[in-house]
């Protein structure tokens, strides 16, 4: 393609014209460096954003009854709505095909003590499937199970932090009895939860136990549903809305009463997340393209400047017998060589900088800022091609004009 002598000419030109070389190289290095860092930071921001929403199961919805705020079907407003066990059967019957797990949940604050240590904790009476929703992981012993529910056993699963608060270090809580609001419950297990300390101060007992001890009724404070994960976000939102509509009808709550029966549907959050994530994507793409365009404009300008600066030299070479082709080749290969090296340098420095600054960026919500090296290589190639095209046009002009015109160029 190009003999050794040709490369020697190019290396000499590169080596002896340092300002020119550094100028064009820096443009490329800097553009790729910025591109890499900005893209990496954008990705880091997205990573942080995603991690916010992955603590609990994403396919969950929470339905809570409250006091009505509108008069409807002969009932006055301000009536208190309470769910019962029958509602679970109603939901299962009508929506069973969309539901993975349905969980009753009653919650109250109680004092829990062991020996002389005592503190106030949330006590949550639930069906055993709650662990799929809260992502509580048994740490020691076991979680409550169906047998506990059937026997209405006074058993409790305590959070890791509750255990650390109440029990001396090194002593297992499993098998011990704790005092829960005046009643003795047997600890059957402890759990950890990726959600953090607050989630690890929750304590679970069987829902049936709570219903028989606290009020002897079948009231349910809150219904939690894990819908089947093959439902799309849109389907899940429609499912939640339909379910609330049915329940409002069942309890004679006005359809437009926002408080009587409320739903928190994670699917809606997921959809919001997707939109925000998409917006972040757009911002990252726009910034990246902007950086690239700046780089392209920069290298194009410099190539035009370089050829302009060399016009007289090219005229001399032509007078001495250089063909237009050899002139174009010389400029193109020089540009190719400089931009390739400079682009690679930018890539290496950029990823290096990202790696070095990454730990310090977590407090600015930028987590694990990485770039796909394929994208950066593509960007580098794009800049190289731009530089070559931008160099080719003036190089060809310089090669085609009469040598006397080039020689007279100052």
């Amino acid at each position, binding site marked *: 393609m190009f003999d*050794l*002598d040709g490369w*020697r*000419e190019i290396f*000499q*030109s590169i080596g*002896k*014209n340092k300002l020119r070389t550094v100028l064009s190289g820096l443009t490329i290095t800097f553009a790729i460096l910025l591109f890499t860092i900005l893209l990496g930071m954008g990705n880091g921001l997205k990573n942080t954003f995603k991690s916010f929403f992955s603590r609990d199961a994403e396919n969950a919805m929470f339905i809570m009854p409250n006091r009505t705020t509108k008069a409807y079907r002969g009932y006055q407003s301000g009536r208190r709505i309470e769910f019962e066990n029958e509602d679970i059967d109603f939901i299962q019957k009508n929506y069973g095909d969309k539901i993975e797990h349905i969980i009753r949940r009653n919650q109250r604050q109680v004092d829990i003590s062991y020996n002389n240590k005592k503190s106030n904790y949330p006590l949550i009476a639930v069906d055993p499937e709650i662990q799929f929703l809260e992502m509580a992981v048994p740490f020691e012993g076991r979680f409550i199970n169906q047998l506990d529910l059937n026997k209405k056993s006074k058993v409790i699963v305590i959070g890791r932090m509750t255990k650390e608060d109440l029990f001396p270090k090194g002593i297992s809580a499993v098998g011990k009895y704790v005092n829960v609001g005046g009643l003795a419950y047997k600890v059957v297990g402890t759990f950890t939860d990726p959600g953090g300390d607050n989630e690890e101060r929750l304590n679970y007992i069987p829902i049936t136990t709570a219903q028989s001890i606290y009020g002897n009724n079948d009231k349910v404070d809150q219904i939690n549903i894990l819908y089947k994960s093959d439902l799309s976000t849109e389907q899940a939102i429609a499912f939640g809305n339909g379910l609330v509509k049915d329940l409002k009808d069942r309890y004679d709550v006005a359809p437009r009463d926002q408080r009587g029966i409320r739903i928190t549907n994670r699917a809606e959050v997921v959809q919001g997340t997707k939109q925000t994530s998409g917006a972040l994507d757009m911002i990252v793409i726009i910034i990246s393209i902007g950086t690239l365009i700046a780089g392209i404009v920069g290298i194009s300008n410099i190539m035009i400047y370089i050829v302009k600066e060399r016009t*007289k*030299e090219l*005229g*001399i*070479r*032509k*007078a*001495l*017998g*250089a*063909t*237009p*082709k*050899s002139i174009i080749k010389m400029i193109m290969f020089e540009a190719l060589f400089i931009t390739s090296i400079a682009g690679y340098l930018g890539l290496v420095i950029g990823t290096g900088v990202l790696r070095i600054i990454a730990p310090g960026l977590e407090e600015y919500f930028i987590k694990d800022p990485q770039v796909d090296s394929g994208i950066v290589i593509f960007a580098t190639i794009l800049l190289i091609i731009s530089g070559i095209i931008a160099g080719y046009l003036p190089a060809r002009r310089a*090669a*085609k004009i*009469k*040598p*006397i015109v080039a*020689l007279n160029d100052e």
Partner: protein
Amino acid sequence: MIKLENLHKSYPIGKDSLHVLKGINLHIKEGEFVSIMGSSGSGKSTLLNIVGLLDGHDKGEYYLNGKLIENLDEKKAAILRNKFLGFVFQSFNLISYKTALENIALPLYYKGIHRKERQKIAMEYLEKVDLKDWANHLPSELSGGQKQRIAIARALVTQPKVVLADEPTGALDSTTSQSVMELLKEINNEGMTVFVITHEEDIAAQTDRIVRLRDGIITSDKKTKQREKV
């Protein structure tokens, strides 16, 4: 060697055109030492550029080494320049980042001669112009006279048929001018055709033949007699 018949050249200036050469007839034989004289604007540089294939002509015929020059593209022109012509310019036109030796060797690179061979030949010509010790100096480290001798060595290195010199002493003082002229005479004595442009009478007087140009027409063409061929 060079034969011009009714040669015309105009340059467009806006909508008008400037008629620079208005029918030049000139025949330069092999081994001649010819000078073209004329004031600035007489068309002498244009004439040299056309003869040197650095520029094209509009009308008339130009034979170089017996071959009619027509429909010349830049590639063919480059090859012909490399093969037949050597240039010496008023402003030397050395490449600033190349050493004396590399400047001299450059035409050989475009001739496709191998690097080792190139350097050997270039060194011979460097010796010929008495600048052997300056081989690795950059043009900026040389005096005007030295630069012009490097340029002459570069013009000779491909062993062309004609050396074209455009005001070769224009940027030099009288002593160095004289040494450059001595060098040109010497190469002419070795049989090279030399074609010089000048506006200095005493420079022209040292050549074999003076062609005077005014307003694009040859006004006189005389042999000088003070120089005897060896």
